[in-house]
């Protein structure tokens, strides 16, 4: 029985682990934290494998475990809710500070509060609907909408230059 569970679990990780890891890295904004987050979620999934395998969408179930673990870390290590999306620019203690100068989007994402960042990643990376993102995050649709609006507003400045480039490029082709 245990061997069967191990085999199924291994197959699941082999098939879906890479995708889950990409999401984990984006919501944490850090490679190592992303790996730790995936590990935490997989440990919970392994413990509740019977439920995972019977779920309509096992990947969605594990993704939800992962986001829940991420938000629990956030609750424990930072504030319950951050009223403002302001992070220090100094990057002290930030594992990604070495690369921050070369990656504007990552810096912009790290400036968002973890909940806002999670909402943006779920909506525009995972391509979930507002309702699906709300289900994963354990909050209401209006809360997700609010988070996403704030996130997009904060990211607009980062995306504008690329959009200009695209516009210029498309004009060039005309």
């Amino acid at each position, binding site marked *: 029985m245990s061997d069967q569970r191990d085999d199924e679990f291994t197959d699941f*990780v082999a098939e879906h682990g890479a995708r889950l890891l990409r999401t984990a890295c984006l919501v944490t904004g850090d490679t190592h934290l992303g790996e730790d987050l995936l590990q935490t979620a997989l*440990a919970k999934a392994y413990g509740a494998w019977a439920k995972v395998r019977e779920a309509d969408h096992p990947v969605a179930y594990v993704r939800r475990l992962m986001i829940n673990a991420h938000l629990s870390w956030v609750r424990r290590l*930072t504030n*319950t809710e*951050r009223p403002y999306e302001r992070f220090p620019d100094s990057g002290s203690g930030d594992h990604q500070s070495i690369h921050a100068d070369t*990656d504007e989007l990552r810096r912009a994402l790290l400036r968002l509060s973890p909940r806002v960042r999670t909402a943006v990643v779920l909506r*525009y990376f995972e391509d979930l609907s507002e309702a699906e993102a709300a289900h994963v995050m354990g909050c209401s649709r209006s809360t997700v909408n609010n988070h996403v609006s704030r996130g997009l507003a904060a990211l607009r400045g980062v995306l504008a230059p690329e959009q200009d480039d695209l516009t210029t490029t498309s004009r060039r082709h005309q």
Partner: protein
Amino acid sequence: MNDNDTTVLTSRLHQLADELTPPLDVDGQVHGARAGHRRRRRTRVVLLAAATATTVVLIGVPLTIESLTSAPSGGVAGPAPAGAGSTASDSRDADRRAAEEAATRARDAAQQTSGGSTAIPDGWEPRTFQGVTFAVPPGARSADAVTDLPVSSWTDGPSLVWNGPHLGGDLYSSVNVTVTQPFEGGLPPRGGGRWFTVPGASSAYGNIETSLMTDGVAQAERTVVWLEMLAGDRVVHLDAVFDGGPSGEQMARDLIASIVVD
């Protein structure tokens, strides 16, 4: 943002994910998940055993003391010999009465130290939400935020947030109480805490931690409280942030001591 902007955002997020994400080590992740699960299960078993032993001692000692001190006035406290002025039935009744009185006293003591008006520090304000009674310190910056969601899963449920005073930078003190379904009939698996006794809860696991938080300008020490309580077919989650230092830790202890679950 228009559709074009969001398309660009999606594309950039995928590029960033490509850059951030290392190759997946399937064997390492599977092995780590299995080991992590077993470690957590062992910890839960040990902590449950310790909590059970503590409960037995806490209940057994008052009952023993009660049965010893309920000897007839002037008599020497000790086990009553069979047939020494009382029948077996009288003895059983006396034992039952003693147990009931001890239980009542223990419950009253718990109420006084946990949720009774005498245990709430001066100026603290009582709150009752979804059958959970607790107290919060004075100085809320705005009204409580209540979300009336149904208790639909082990992650979803109604919540109340007490919006506490400014702690510096962009950090605020807060208390968040959320009620959810149990996780597989119990508390969600979680490490790094210890077991608490909360009146009305069959088990309670959490911790009071000191955390370095970024307040928008610099890092500052804050007191973080998290506690998960199992009460019948629901789990009450409590998360709170207070100022760092002894005063914040005392607030955290007072908050936990004020909780009573109906």
